[in-house]
């Protein structure tokens, strides 16, 4: 089954992806992120046609706790965050919990 890439974020963030052909997107203006971002993310996570959800790492802080956890641990679709460096999107925490040491510590 073929799936698509989805983008969630401010209109400035999503425009570039639309230029590359991404059809599924959710524009959430910066001042309404606290109210609307949760619904947008939930909708994308529940969409079977979506294989990858792209978000900016800073936007994760606008999500409520439950939705953020769902997004970070979701495998289908998988969430890729941009702008947060290695180990963003909860991966670093998960590694610390599973392995017992912080493997992404750059020092």
């Amino acid at each position, binding site marked *: 089954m*073929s799936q698509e890439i989805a983008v969630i974020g401010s209109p400035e963030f999503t425009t570039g992806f639309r230029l590359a052909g*991404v059809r599924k997107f959710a524009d959430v203006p910066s001042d309404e992120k606290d109210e609307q971002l949760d619904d947008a993310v939930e909708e994308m996570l529940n969409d079977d046609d979506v294989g990858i959800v792209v978000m900016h790492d800073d936007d994760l802080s606008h999500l409520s706790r439950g939705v953020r956890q769902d997004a970070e641990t979701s495998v289908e679709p*998988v969430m*890729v965050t941009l702008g947060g*460096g*290695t180990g963003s999107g909860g991966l670093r925490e998960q590694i610390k919990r*599973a392995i017992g040491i912080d493997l992404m510590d750059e020092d």
Partner: protein
Amino acid sequence: MAKDVKPTRKNLMQIEDRIELSERGHDTLEKKRDGLIMEFMDILDQAQDVREDLDDSYDRAQRAINMARAMEGDVAVRGAAAALKEHPELTTQSKNIMGVVVPQIESSKVRKSLDERGYGVMGTSARIDEAAEAYEELLENIILAAEVETAMKKMLEEIETTKRRVNALEFKLLPDLYDNQEYIEQKLEEQEREEIFRMKKIKAKKEEEEDALATEEEAQEEPEAVTADD
């Protein structure tokens, strides 16, 4: 827990069998956990490289689109973005790493030539083309990152479950079984000692009785001997 079992030989044998099985399972799971961690380390190196590329291409793409916005205006960029007709598609296959099913994502129509993009060549400038190209490259890197990070998430879940199982066996199940084994062994030994003591008592009592009987018989025989002399 130790007091729940009946101290019988049958139970002891059953517990010894369970200990053997649990120890074997514990060893196997420990090996599985170590193997998974080693596989995970390989993927982690790969993931770090992919992440670096992803961040670089994101910076490049942002610069390109900001340039396009500055030169052409936001409306022109959005207009071009809305005109796209070809859309990237993903197909997922799976690969098995030590029992963990990880996805292999294949994409099509991510890179597009100028005439496939759908916005008119005449109406837009090279800046928009550059931005579109930069974002196409970014999408390719995102797909790679998604593949590697999903694999990492799945492996981490498996490592966590295996680790929990190993710990449960090592710190809960096996100590309980050893406790039960020791309890039954001690009880059986105690029963054996009691039995020996009882036997000794019975033996002593029997000997006492026999002695008493013997002295009685002797006592009876002696007066008879006296009467015979008469």
